[in-house]
């Protein structure tokens, strides 16, 4: 039987999605389903988090799908995805319409420019934090640096970069096996 009733899951996920603005989304979900409600153990949550990192695709919707699946089965997975996507998508569409119809004047352009610059600072913080946690040995540093150079300054097609780097990285990862 499912641990959580679907309607309740939808309510909690919609609310958590709406209030977890500006990055660090997994932390808000951890707080909502592990700390505050005790629906999942820490280990279960971590397992779902690694799933999102390994699977291709947008991370934060993956997390909602995985958590929703665990809590309320396949319907829970779909419901959780809709709960975190639909409110933001609707809002963003509204903003896009405003943007397109000149509802954003010169002031708004300056505002957006300032925001865009701050977003660079925000994504840099996230990237550095994750790099500090995940890139520790020489293999990982080399793979991360080469991947960066290829997709950043050299603008090589990302599918090619991922295919080549995944093969090399997987081959190198055998020596690092602790188990």
């Amino acid at each position: 039987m499912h641990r959580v009733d679907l309607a309740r899951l939808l309510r909690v996920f919609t609310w958590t999605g709406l209030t977890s603005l500006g990055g660090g989304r997994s932390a808000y979900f951890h707080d909502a389903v592990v700390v505050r409600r005790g629906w999942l153990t820490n280990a279960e949550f971590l397992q779902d988090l690694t799933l999102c990192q390994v699977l291709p695709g947008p991370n934060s919707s993956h997390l909602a799908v995985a958590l929703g699946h665990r809590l309320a089965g396949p319907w829970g997975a779909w419901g959780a995805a809709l709960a975190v996507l639909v409110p933001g998508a609707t809002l963003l569409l509204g903003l896009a319409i405003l943007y397109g119809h000149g509802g954003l004047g010169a002031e708004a352009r300056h505002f957006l420019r300032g925001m865009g610059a701050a977003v660079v600072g925000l994504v840099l913080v996230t990237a550095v934090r994750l790099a500090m946690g995940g890139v520790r040995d020489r293999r990982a540093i080399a793979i991360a640096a080469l991947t960066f150079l290829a997709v950043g300054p050299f603008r090589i097609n990302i599918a090619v970069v991922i295919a080549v780097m995944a093969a090399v990285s997987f081959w190198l990862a055998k020596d690092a096996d602790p188990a």
Partner: protein
Amino acid sequence: MPDLLVLTWTFVWLSFLAIGGGLGVLPEMQRQVVTIHGWVTAQEFVDGYALAQLTPGPNMLVAVFIGYRAHGVPGAVLAGLAMFLPASALAGMVAGHWGRLRQRPFVRRLERAIAPIGIGLMAGGVYTLSRSAVHDVLTASLALAAFAVLWSGRVPPIIVVLAAGLVGLLARA
């Protein structure tokens, strides 16, 4: 192929290349939607990403913004579905078996192999974003100031991003 289909297909394959989060796919997304297909300008791309940061939900919802700029509401809906539907379906299918799969040495090795690639891709995303969002002393200082404040972890990102918008507004007024 009609442009609307090209748009949809582009976001489907982009979504499957987003390893380690949406930020990693930004360089390729910009190349596709700005350079190759011209659906948005470089400035609109940055503006859309900033708006996606402000709205709740994943930042990859920026697909909705680009889709709307390219083909109105149908473009927005199709781009959003393309970005999230196939990838979420995959996550849903794997989620039920993940606990068991993760015990296998092959999957553990895959986890270790993919983590640094995800980080390299993310760094590429930061690079791409900074190339279009930082173009003078003001924007460079705002980016650095935001980095410093957010690094301390005491101020929520949304406050920092809005405050920077305000500075941008006041500085040009």
